[in-house]
């Protein structure tokens, strides 16, 4: 993989955002927010397994699994009252799930800044997604060691 090549889903998400003008980028983020899947049942009663991303202003929790084939599965939950955070989590979940651990770790840390959201939602808020991505990568690093 060349340094500039993004995994296909992340590239598609980026292209989708950049093709829109600013108000429509917000609408797309809202669609992502609505698409955030429910937690799998085995985590629903185990909030202790989930890691809180304290850098986000809203309560958001993520949990990464690395399976025996080194494939990453990512889960996240955030309240409905925090649609922006949910949208960010949904992008990270959709973009990373199914990648190998190596592919996840190769995702550029500044990917959230490439979606054209700085103007639509403000640079400060985009940092919340940067933190989510950072946490997800950190969890993958830790879990594949096991």
């Amino acid at each position, binding site marked *: 993989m060349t340094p500039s090549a993004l995994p296909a889903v992340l590239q598609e998400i980026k292209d989708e955002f950049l093709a829109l003008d600013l108000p429509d980028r*917000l*609408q797309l*983020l*809202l669609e992502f*927010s609505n698409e955030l899947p429910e937690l799998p049942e085995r985590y629903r009663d185990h909030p202790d397994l989930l890691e809180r991303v*304290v*850098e986000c*202003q*809203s309560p958001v929790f993520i949990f990464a699994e690395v399976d025996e084939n080194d494939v990453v599965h990512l889960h996240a939950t955030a309240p*409905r*009252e*925090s*649609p*922006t*955070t949910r*949208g960010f989590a949904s992008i990270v979940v959709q973009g990373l799930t199914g990648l190998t651990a190596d592919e996840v770790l190769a995702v550029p840390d500044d990917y959230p800044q490439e979606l054209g959201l700085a*103007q*639509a*939602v*403000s640079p*400060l*808020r985009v*940092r919340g997604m*940067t*933190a989510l991505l*950072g*946490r997800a990568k*950190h969890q993958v690093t830790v879990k594949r060691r096991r």
Partner: protein
Amino acid sequence: MAVGIDPSAKFAEYAHPERLVSTQWLSDHLGDDGLAVVESDEDVLLYETGHIPTAVKIDWHTDLNDPVLRDFVSSQRFAELLGEKGIARDTTVVIYGDKNNWWAAYALWVFTLFGHEDVRLLDGGRDKWIAEGRTITTEAPRPVPAQYPVVPRDDSRIRAFKDDVLAHLGRGPLIDVRSPEEYSGERTEIPGYPTEGALRSGHIPSAASVPWARAAAPDATFRPRAELEAIYKGEAGLKDGDDVIAYCRIGERSSHTWFVLTHLLGFENVRNYDGSWTEWGSAVRVPIVTGSEPGEARAA
């Protein structure tokens, strides 16, 4: 004033009852001539998930902050923004939002910098409206554009800059409205992760710690006047006539406290230091104190 005030008994206790309306009052007056309803949230997408009918959205980042300079928008831009939202200079504006009206209070404070006279908060904000099962809609309103005059922003009365705070040290009270962990300085950055941080942690010498949300009851309404007096005059030691400066991290939470001190308790000289900890905690050679005690301020 374009629209009458809410005569609720609870508000009558406050220094400026005309600055609050109840959910019932708003429900009764939606659609009145001369009334505009504005939603202002922390979350930039929350409005899009459903809002009070006729409410327009004003976002604190993308609408009220200058995109380049660390400052609020210019007079020209403010006039354009309000005109687009259908707000005229004499419109009664009721602002509401999420999280105990945190960002709504910030928007109200910015409206006040521009001298918009009749601007009020919905007591209890978005949460109370929804908790009461009142109507929300995703239908985008189409306000009739208004002519809003280009008026100068007055930064001298209710806004404090870093030099103002330095000059205030040892001469008047400061209120730090952040969490106790931010105040004491024990909460620092987590290595490798970006935060809205500063290079040093702690608080401004002599500042009293009163986390902003203590002014709100569990249902997001403001606490009754007697309880607010006990917190700000009893515990924090403010006295009538004091010049007070409030701060937080970027000036949003302290807007809420500014509202409480100014409009509910009647302090006439309260300034919000919007540079707040993100500026003070990174500025060179300004004094700071760590730990849970206020510490000594020496007059500059």
